[in-house]
């Protein structure tokens, strides 16, 4: 009961923080919109007399004092109205949300690769630190860190698309509509298109996570309870996976969560290289064409993603280690 109450209190605190951060992001987006965007020019063009402009400005509420405008912006934002895109002539939120599945599936595929490779590789490097394989892995990880994500993409395209002609180099390929969700995971063509971008995006995270898993595992393997478990005759595999890895997950999640923002940036770069029609690609299009409402909506959406994933990482930490919530109460 006590634990449940602590958990709820922890969650409420995190949720309140998340809402505050989102509010701050919305205010920034409002300020950007006010400073850079002139909706009148987009609606009426340049050659309209000043009297008409003033009338429309009044009608749209653009002559109201800024606190009133901010309140209206936040009120509309809460209802899901973040403005109209200049390019698409549609609600910006709809435009950005339509691109979300593409980015999500790319990040999902890349995360799966990172998880499936970095856990075994990191554990191996921790339990056999002197082996050739471990040294080779760590040596290669220096190289991996040194190749920018967009270059990995370009190298992969040069080799597998242009030279060998094995895999497609741009776009999502054939997709299937599942209600509002447009997925590329259900067709062979869609999956083929996913291979190179997913490998590219995972390549930049892999070296970091292999090192992270390795050092977290090394910390745990040196601790007393591991020695005790071994002394009691538990098998090596059982000690590594059941005891050490379970406790190593906590620092891995905590430090991994610090990479969420970088993951957003790397996704944007990967999407640019592969012309992957996701949110990052949309953002750059909006930037080149100065679509201010679309830009600010992307900022809000990315801020929301950042806050939600960070909160989820916190909740996962609490679930793995109930002491965290209690420490927060002190």
């Amino acid at each position, binding site marked *: 009961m006590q634990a449940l109450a602590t958990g709820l209190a922890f969650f409420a605190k995190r949720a309140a923080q998340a809402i505050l951060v989102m509010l701050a992001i919305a205010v920034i987006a409002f300020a*950007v919109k006010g*400073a*850079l965007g002139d909706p009148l020019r987009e609606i009426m063009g340049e050659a309209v007399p000043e009297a008409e402009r003033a009338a429309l400005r009044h009608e749209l509420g653009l002559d109201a004092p800024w606190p009133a405008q901010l309140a209206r912006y936040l009120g509309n934002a809460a209802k899901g109205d973040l403005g109209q895109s200049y390019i698409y002539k549609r609600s910006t939120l709809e435009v950005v949300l339509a691109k979300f599945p593409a980015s999500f599936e790319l990040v999902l595929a890349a995360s799966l690769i990172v998880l499936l490779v970095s856990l075994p590789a990191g554990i191996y490097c921790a339990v056999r*630190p002197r082996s050739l394989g471990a040294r080779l892995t760590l040596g290669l990880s*220096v*190289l991996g*860190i*040194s*190749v*920018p*994500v*967009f*270059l990995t993409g*370009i*190298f992969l*395209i*040069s080799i597998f698309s*242009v030279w060998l002609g094995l895999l497609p*180099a741009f776009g999502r390929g054939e997709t299937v509509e599942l209600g509002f969700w447009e997925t590329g995971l259900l067709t062979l063509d869609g999956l083929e298109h996913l291979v190179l971008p997913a490998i590219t995006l995972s390549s930049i995270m892999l070296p970091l996570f292999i*090192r992270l898993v390795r*050092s977290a595992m*090394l910390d745990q393997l040196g601790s007393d309870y591991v020695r005790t478990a071994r002394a009691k005759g538990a098998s090596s595999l059982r000690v590594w996976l059941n005891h050490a890895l379970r406790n190593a997950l906590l620092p891995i999640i905590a430090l991994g*969560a*610090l*990479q*969420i*923002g*970088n*993951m*957003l*940036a*790397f996704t*944007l*770069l990967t999407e*640019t*290289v592969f012309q992957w029609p996701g949110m990052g690609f949309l*953002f*750059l299009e*909006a*930037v*080149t064409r*100065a*679509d*201010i409402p679309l*830009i600010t909506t992307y*900022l809000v959406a*990315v801020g929301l993603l950042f806050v939600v994933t*960070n909160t989820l990482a916190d909740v996962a930490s609490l679930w793995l280690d109930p002491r965290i919530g209690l420490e927060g109460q002190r």
Partner: protein
Amino acid sequence: MSARVSALVAARATALNHPLGLLAAIVLGAIALAALAAPLIAPQNPFDLASFDVLDAEMPPLWLAGSDPRFLLGTDSQGRDLLSAILYGTRISLTVGILAVAIQAAIGIPLGLIAGYTGGRVDSLIARLADVQLSLSSLMLAIIALALVRAGLGGETLGRFAVPLLVLVIGLAEWPYFARTARAATQAEAAKDHVRAGRALGASDAGIIWRHILPNILSPLIVVATTQIAGAVMAEAALSFLGLGLPVTQPSLGTLIRSGYDLIFAGIWWVTVLPGLALVVVLVSVNLLGDALRDGLDPRLTPR
């Protein structure tokens, strides 16, 4: 003075124990020298539109069929000599990287010294600020900041002020790495006898920090600076690749990679791959040098 001598001794020992680090230092030194001397040794000035001719466009490098002996590494889509462009591009990339890291150090080291020396509430405030700053991706912040400049003021203005803007956005967000290292090293140093003796003799706090602490914590800071330069060069390349950095008229390595990218599909791979390889060589050598320096100057920081 003694700190400097011991750093030199350590550097020599490092060089002898780390053939790979030594190699990286030599390669990096050669690249830096070539970049610095670019105006003297480059066959052509890639910023000067009159010095190249579009009739020479898309020539392959010397070892491929159809090459021209004037262009060792071939030419880009505008007829620009690729070797010259890479030399000048490396020069810009390294300049932006080093200046950005100088800003990081100028913010981070004083904050770290203050936090480590005073402790208490100031310390926890600075630590909290560093945590928040680190959780926000500096690359993402830089992308957003430059994207807003571009959307608001236009691509031309962005291009004109690209170098100072890049230095600022890459420099401002990454101070916590310097601050954390300086803080930890300061705490260790402040507990030592020579610092306590200085304080007992009535030296001012600023004097102690400047004369007794800073010279003794330089080694770990040099290690941080090295890895940060690799990060800053990479960030500059990424931003320029996105079209948020240096313009095509004044290309950095990232801009060259971006402008040659479309040509890959026509089989003209060298315009993008060769600057890309140059970038990778720079980054690998900086990172290897950083690893070697860490082993040599500050064994405590070596990951187990």
